[in-house]
Every structure is written in structure tokens, then in C-alpha cells.
């Protein structure tokens, strides 16, 4: 029992390291090669945990071999479009100029239900609103609506606005983020001043967000007097 426990702890740490090594893309949308690695990794990791007669190295070696190969392949794919196409495939246009390409749908083995479901996932409930739809290499659909159906932007409405970064999270549960302060061009003393104005110490702040203009939102920890 203890062997299983220790192996589970070690493999947990190793798999987290392996997934981190694969990069952020792995956590979000899976390319075909990454999906294969993820499935294999989860299967292989369970073998030495379930069967203590299997040496743990028999699980660790293939996991890291797969991850390393995946990283090497993605590095190569970055340098060559042809390789990228080979490993990940290429996006397919499934609706063009408002017209469904049934051949592409057939090639992708995409049913009408699949298409409608994917469109609903993009907040499109009426297919006649779609100008262009692309099936990405991850299998996800991205949609460009017809201009008559699209949400008007501020520039369409001739509204004068200034581009600005959204507020940054400066204090989270009393913890001041130096990186966020640098982002908005302020320092720790500014936080102390803001906190003092609210009759609190920085440690008593639950959330403090602020933008470059110095506009801030402060929420104090509950129970603070």
C-alpha cells in the first residue's frame, strides 16, 4: 500500500512537470499530437501505480520520452509549415460566403448536428448569420458572422474612445503584486496611500485593482473594523 502511495506522489509530481514542459498550449487546446501524448501519458502513468511488480522507471521513461519527442516535434513544426501541416493538419473552411461546403463536412466526417452544436458554441443559433466558418486543427469551429448580423463596434458607431489596458490585480488577499504595480507604473507607497485613505493597511485589503490612470477598486477583507 505504501509503495502505491509513494509511487502516486512521485508520478503526480513528474506528470505535472511533464505537462508544464509541454507548455501552456497543452492545457488549453490540444493539437492531435498533444492529444496522443496526453492519452498515452495518462495510461502509462497508471501502470506502475496499479501493479507494484512493474518498476516505476518503466512508467517514467516512456512518459518523458513522449514529452521530449512532442517538444522536439513542435520545435521542428515551428520551423516548417509542411511539418506543421503533417503533425497538426490544417484548418478547413466549412462555410464560405454563407454557403456550407458539404464536401469538407463529408471529408471531416462532420454531421449537421456537429456543425449546429459547434455554431451554438460560438453563440450562433441561425446558420444564415454565418459568413465564414473554419474548423481549426484542434477541431474547434471559429465563426465570422455576416456584417449585417455582427455586433457594431464603437468605431462603427463613431464613438470616441481611448485604448487602455484593463485594470490589473494589485493586491490579492493582502498580497501586493510587484509585477502588477510595475505594469501600471506605480509603487508600494501608492498602495499604502490608497489603503490609508480607506482607513486600512495593505494587509487588510482583499482585492485592489487599478489601471494606469490610477482609477482603482478596493475591497477590504470581511471582518475588518
Amino acid at each position, binding site marked *: 500500500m505504501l509503495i502505491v502511495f509513494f509511487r502516486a506522489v512521485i508520478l503526480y509530481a513528474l506528470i505535472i512537470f511533464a505537462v508544464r514542459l509541454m507548455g501552456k498550449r497543452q492545457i488549453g487546446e490540444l493539437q492531435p499530437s498533444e492529444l496522443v501524448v496526453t492519452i498515452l501519458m495518462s495510461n502509462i502513468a497508471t501502470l506502475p501505480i496499479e501493479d507494484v*511488480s*512493474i*518498476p516505476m*522507471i518503466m512508467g517514467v*521513461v516512456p512518459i*518523458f*520520452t513522449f514529452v*521530449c519527442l512532442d517538444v*522536439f516535434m513542435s*520545435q521542428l513544426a515551428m520551423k516548417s509549415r509542411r511539418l506543421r501541416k503533417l503533425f497538426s493538419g490544417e484548418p478547413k473552411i466549412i462555410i464560405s460566403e454563407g454557403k456550407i461546403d458539404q464536401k469538407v463536412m463529408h471529408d471531416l466526417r462532420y454531421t449537421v448536428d456537429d456543425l449546429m452544436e459547434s455554431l451554438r458554441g460560438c453563440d450562433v443559433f441561425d446558420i444564415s448569420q454565418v459568413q465564414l466558418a473554419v474548423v481549426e486543427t484542434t477541431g474547434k469551429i471559429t465563426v465570422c458572422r455576416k456584417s449585417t448580423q455582427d455586433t457594431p463596434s464603437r468605431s462603427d458607431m463613431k464613438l470616441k474612445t481611448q485604448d487602455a489596458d484593463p485594470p490589473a490585480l494589485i493586491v490579492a488577499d493582502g498580497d501586493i503584486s510587484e509585477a502588477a504595480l510595475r505594469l501600471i507604473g506605480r509603487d508600494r507607497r501608492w498602495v499604502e496611500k490608497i489603503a490609508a485613505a480607506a482607513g486600512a493597511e495593505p494587509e487588510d485589503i482583499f482585492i485592489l485593482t487599478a489601471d494606469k490612470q490610477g482609477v482603482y477598486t478596493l475591497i477590504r477583507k470581511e471582518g475588518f473594523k
Partner: protein
Amino acid sequence: MNRAVVCGVLMAVIAAVSVGSVVMLDRSTEHILGLIDAVTEAGESGTPEEVEDTIAALEDYWRGHYIRLSVIVQTGALNDISYALAKLRPLYAHNADDFIAECRGIRRWVELICEGQLPRVYSVL
């Protein structure tokens, strides 16, 4: 550090550990086969003291060898050899004909474990 560099280092470590384990296995198998042959020869034409000494040497080496091998080989196969080794003394004490057969069996088991780890085409496929 660059991911590719980390992966390169990891692959190098994996390759080194893999090759190292095969070399270690090859050397220790050669040694243990020599010990098994010594037990067999003593059983065929040696004195009981010689048999006792050679079995003790074999068991002693096997203890360390088992731990090293258990890192790279399933322990099921290793346990089978341990059971067979434990049977050698009683078999010899009862002048059983099976003694030599058991020695030959252990020898083959050890060879098979080593052969199973060598990256031959049929093993890979």
C-alpha cells in the same frame, strides 16, 4: 531554460540510463551465470561442502542483484528465480535428480531476463 534544451538533457539522461542499465545487466548476468555454473559443477562432481559454498555465494550475489534488477525488470520474474534458489539446498540434501535440472532452469531464467532487456528487433517488435 529553453524547453528544447531541457528535453535534450532529459533524452540524454534517459538514453544514458537505458544504455547503462543494459550494460549493468549484461555484466551482472555474466557473473551470476558463472556462479550458477559453479553450483552445477559442484552438484555434478563436487563435495557437499563445495556445493554449500557455491550455493551460499550464489544466494549472496543474488540478493544484491535482485535489488539492482528490480529497478528495470518486473519483480514477478525475479521472484520466480528467488523461489528456485531457495529450493536448491533441500534438493541437494535429498540427492534429488532435480537439483541439476533446477540449476539449468535458473540459468535459463537469468539468461531470458537479460535477453528480454536487450534492444533486439524481435524484442522491439
